[in-house]
């Protein structure tokens, strides 16, 4: 990665981290409802892959741990936070919530709450690309536990069979909700599981963004050049529980501490400091500035935005009725 890009992406990762930590606080304050799945610890995965791809151009789809993926594609953090607050200005107009962030203008095709649900949707988006003849690719970010769903195998088979331009990124954070991977899955290294579909695959360290970036470059080039799907496994860790109701009784504090020694933000920060591209004081100032941005702009926007109108409860269930009248009435011109 170029130095300028590393500096930029470090800043982005800090925004992502502080955004998520601020969500935690807002949840405790009951400003955010429902389920909340946070991303700290895994930032190098989304950022490293998307640095190798084209955010806003390539189509991205993921599960319910989706805030950072949306923001990385180009979604305004203000709109994502407003969505979490359930406001009309939210990215899904307050109808989606944390697990259903969408920002289609930046080709972020959504967060979905059924584990493994996005696999076939991603292959379908790739099918759409294939039909339309563009050079975009579809990127599907999911966790390791999704690979135990039938949709994983069904989709890997079809993606390989139809040679679809889709990159599957497996963020292997070692836990499916509260069950350790070795207790739920016969094969811990997930990239091995696609060999049955003759699919190109690789595994790399998901904490070091430069390693992620290099592996993702190979993967993205493979898919974009029309060679079919690719499966990239990133070994990573989420610091917080699966969601907010999770007190992490299924793992030790020692294990968590060990992973925090390999924090994706600190790895990049320390490298930039060692390369004399920045100082610790620069970093600390940046963190403060980002916290101020999140408080004064992101949170402020969410707090001050209006609620959706109750009269519009049924809006968005179906397409705008007027536009569909030829088919509803059969009186097509």
């Amino acid at each position, binding site marked *: 990665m170029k130095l300028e890009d590393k500096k930029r992406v470090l800043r982005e990762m800090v925004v992502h981290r502080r955004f998520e930590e601020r969500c935690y606080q807002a949840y405790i304050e009951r400003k955010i409802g429902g389920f909340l799945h946070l991303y700290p610890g895994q930032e190098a995965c989304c950022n490293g892959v998307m640095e190798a791809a084209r955010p806003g151009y390539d*189509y991205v*789809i993921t599960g319910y741990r989706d805030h950072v993926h949306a923001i990385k594609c180009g979604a305004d953090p203000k709109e994502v936070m407003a969505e979490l607050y359930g406001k009309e200005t*939210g*990215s*899904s*107009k*307050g*109808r*989606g*919530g944390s697990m*259903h962030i*969408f*920002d*289609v*203008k930046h080709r972020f*095709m*959504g967060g*979905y*709450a*059924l584990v493994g*649900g996005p*696999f*076939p*949707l*991603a*292959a*379908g*988006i*790739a*099918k*759409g*690309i*294939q*039909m*339309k003849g563009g050079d975009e690719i*579809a990127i599907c970010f999911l966790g390791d536990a999704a690979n135990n769903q*039938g*949709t994983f195998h*069904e*989709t890997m*088979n*079809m993606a390989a*069979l*139809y040679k679809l331009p889709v990159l599957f990124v497996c963020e292997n954070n070692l836990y499916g909700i509260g069950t350790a991977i070795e207790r739920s899955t016969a094969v811990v290294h997930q990239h091995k599981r696609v060999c049955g579909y003759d699919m190109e695959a690789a595994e790399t360290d998901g904490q070091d963004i430069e390693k992620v970036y290099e592996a993702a470059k190979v993967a993205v080039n493979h898919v974009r050049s029309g060679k079919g799907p690719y499966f990239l496994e990133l070994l990573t860790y989420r610091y917080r529980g699966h969601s907010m109701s999770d007190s992490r009784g299924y793992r030790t504090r020692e294990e968590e501490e060990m992973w925090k020694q390999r924090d994706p933000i600190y790895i990049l920060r320390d490298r930039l400091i060692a390369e004399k591209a920045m100082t610790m004081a620069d970093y600390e100032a940046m963190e403060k500035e980002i916290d101020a941005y999140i408080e004064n702009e992101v949170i402020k926007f969410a707090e001050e935005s209006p609620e959706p109108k109750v009269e519009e409860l049924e*809006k*968005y*269930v*179906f*397409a705008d009725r007027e*536009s*569909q009248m*030829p*088919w*509803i*009435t*059969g*009186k*097509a011109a």
Partner: protein
Amino acid sequence: MAEIMYWEAIQRAHDEEMARDPLVICMGEDIGVAGGTYKATKGLYEKYGPLRVIDTPISENSYTGLGIGASFLGVRPIIELMSVNFAWLAMDQMFNSAAKVRYMSGGQLTAPCVFRSAGGAAHQLGAQHSARMEKVFMGIAGLRVVTPSNPRQAYGLLKSAIRCDDPVYINEHELMYNMKGDVPDTEYFHPLEGSEVTRSGTDVTLFGYNISVHWNLKAAEILDKQYGISAEVVDLYSLSPLDREGIRKSVSKTHRAVVVGEEEAPVGVCSEVISVINEECFFELDAAPVRVNSALVPQPYNHTLEKAAIPNAEDVVAAVLKLFGKA
């Protein structure tokens, strides 16, 4: 106006729409090289090729999801689920993805898909190949449900469903693919909403959909000839949304209603129609509305038991006579 078969009508709608729009595709098990289990996609593979006529693996949930994902980019997939029994496996994608995506994205994404499948009991196909599942589909917000009772509807409903931006489930019937009927020679779009008065009457309304419309027509004939009862037959080809106004109008005229469906009671289309009658025109009723349904058993294999499980025109006649105190 030409007389063609139900399957030919469906095939014609596919062909016309695929010729018009290169983004219309179809997919499902055995629909391409094999031409479709019920011939509904016959000849399309040869004409449009494997990129647009996709033979899928037997992976219902994921190929359905694949079609839905493609629809996010403006592709118009016609997704065939060979038998509605297999749609149980695809419901996750149909309901959680297609039906909800528009709402949960605040209107940003829509899934303009068509799902088609053959439902109902045919001849001794047994418990796992004879399901009536329309009751499940019609309870899902964001999904339109239509069910053609003749070739004209089969053609026109599919045409409209393909063009509509909402996801549409089309419930066909295993026993009806070879049924003949008139279909306009010129392009025809059947309304996705509403109902049709198939036979006008004054004494009782027989509500039905899909195959039960035919039982009701036969029953109306018997009622007229043998008992002097004038039955109106209403075809509820749109199950979601139901035609509340059409239901109200007919009941307000006849003041009696029998609701007939091949589905098993309890819970279903028939109980929903009776609820609508209660909500729309309770005080128009001269008798409590009743339903005629299949027995609540897994469909038996044995021919005699199978026949006993499914209603027919005689059962409809009996229900009407009871309503008139003649049984």
